[in-house]
């Protein structure tokens, strides 16, 4: 279950004492390590995801690793195969639909994503029904937990995150170009389709790896919320990615800290902190735009 409630000492008025108690538990140290890696990875990928208006695709890729895992368990192979297989297959199907801003193509794109998600989840229901049992871990898969993360898992997570960030760094410039102005990018010889596909596969792979540790809800929350907040505040890419990562880390650390001293789940605290940051960023951008008497900052972000 997602309940922490391990703060036996209870919350004291001495913040230093509280932090020391938090870090005296090895599972909390691992939770902080994993949370930090996840925040950095999800922040960097999420910034591009929000810029590219692919939040729906991101959510779909975050949830479809569950049927993959259920199917893999049913077939008797390692669940990791299922996680990655489903996420990458989903990414390729979504990438096969041409992206376009024109009405008809956009509505078909959203219909395809919705179909992929619903069908994958229906397959999950089928696999669960065929396998029998498995339902309790389903709640964990959806709502997530940061508990019981082993040292090995932290190491794996670090390796996967580093690899994903290296790939993202390699395609960052053409990806940004292709996002901001696909037509000009194509004319300049940027392989727009290829770059978009690689990005979706990267998004799916990262979501699959992270959701094994944290559950689908937290992956999605960390992909979208910090990036959405940062893009309310700045349109500059470098600063935006930096702010996103900082927001993500603040969200995870404070969420974990609060959950440790309470009986309520990590997912609730992490999403609440993330949403609060987003609302504050929104309010700040509104006030700043009003004060400066110029078009809202988001208008500077491309479409």
């Amino acid at each position, binding site marked *: *279950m*997602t*309940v922490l409630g391990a703060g036996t000492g209870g919350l004291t008025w001495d913040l230093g004492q509280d932090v020391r108690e938090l870090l005296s538990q090895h599972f909390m140290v691992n939770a902080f390590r994993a949370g930090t890696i996840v925040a950095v990875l999800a922040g960097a990928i999420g910034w591009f995801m929000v810029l590219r*208006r692919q*939040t*729906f695709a*991101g*959510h779909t890729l975050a*949830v479809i690793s569950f049927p993959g895992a259920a199917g893999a368990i049913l077939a008797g192979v390692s669940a990791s195969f299922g996680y990655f297989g489903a996420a990458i297959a989903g990414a390729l199907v979504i990438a096969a639909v041409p992206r*376009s801003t*024109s*009405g*008809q*193509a*956009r*509505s*078909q*794109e*959203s*219909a*395809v*994503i*919705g*179909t992929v*998600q*619903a*069908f994958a*989840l*229906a397959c*999950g*229901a*089928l696999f669960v*029904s*065929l396998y029998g049992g498995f*339902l*309790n871990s*389903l*709640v964990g898969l*959806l*709502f*997530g937990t940061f508990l019981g993360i082993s040292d090995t898992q932290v190491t794996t997570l670090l390796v996967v995150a580093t690899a994903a960030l290296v790939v993202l760094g390699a395609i960052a410039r053409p990806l940004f170009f292709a996002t901001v102005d696909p037509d000009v990018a194509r004319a300049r010889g940027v392989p727009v389709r290829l770059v978009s596909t690689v990005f979706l596969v990267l998004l799916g792979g990262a979501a699959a790896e992270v959701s094994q540790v944290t559950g689908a*809800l937290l992956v*999605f*929350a960390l992909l*979208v*919320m910090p*990036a*959405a907040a940062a*893009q309310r505040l700045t349109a500059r890419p470098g600063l935006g990615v930096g702010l996103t990562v900082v927001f993500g880390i603040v969200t995870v650390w404070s969420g974990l800290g609060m959950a440790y001293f309470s*009986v*309520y*789940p990590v*997912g*609730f*605290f992490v*999403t*609440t902190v*993330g*949403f609060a940051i*987003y609302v504050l960023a929104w309010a700040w951008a509104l006030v700043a735009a009003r004060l400066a008497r110029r078009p809202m900052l988001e208008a500077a972000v491309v479409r």
Partner: protein
Amino acid sequence: MTASAALVVDPVTGLAHMFSHPFIRSAFLGGTGIAVASGLVGYFVVLRSQVFSGDALSHVAVTGALGALAAGIDVAFGLYGACVVVAIGLALLGARGRADDTVIGSVFAWILGLGALFLTIYTTSSSGVDATSGISVLFGSIFGLSSGRAVADATVGLGIAVGVVAIARPLLFASVDDAVASARGVPVRALGFVFLVLVGVTAAAATQAVGALLLLGLLATPAGAAQRLTARPFVAFALSAAIAVGSTWVGLVVSYAAPTVPPSFGILAAAVGCYVVAWSATLGRARAHGAVRG
């Protein structure tokens, strides 16, 4: 003789036997009402590229149901309340009744977080309760509909269908070209608002039948298939409802014949089958027309 064998050997008697079960009659009645509503609403959801709003509302339904369970009130109250309130919120947030997808994503990730909180409150406050009632909210239990519930669902579905048909013409105008529509005096914003509330009510009703996670399939898949098959709006509108109803019936029969197949899977597999057929049938035509038809 097993149900599946009976259906194969003698379809007429098999079907008659199938409909002698009260739970099958309830499932067909409630399922048909919800399918008609989802198919009609789904046409505009896809046309307006608001599938993500539907996705968000289906997750809000989970939180609403879990909140009602935690508070100890009727689940239906939580479902409808949460969906309608969030639908109104999404309509208010977005310009012209359409919210930005990052706004939707941030809002519903947080609402799902609230769902996790309610689930914890529910499972810890009442002893002996496991998480399975939360699971049935996620995956639906159409064979568990009582006859009263089925009549209620069919009535709600019919009401939604009447509502969508009533606003179909101006909504189509507003969806295809909102600038011209508002210049012609069509209340674009109010229509977007009313429409999202209808989506919210549909989400709440459908969650009980096919489950929150699969509702999206009933909204997006039949409508996507219908729009691939024909460019004529009102034909596609009706076709979308027909595919949704047909998929529901096929799914229910398959699930009855093969009890290990959950009805939700049968329904969605039939709908996805229609979509794949529509896609492959129109692939050549779309290529010839340069991928995008007006």
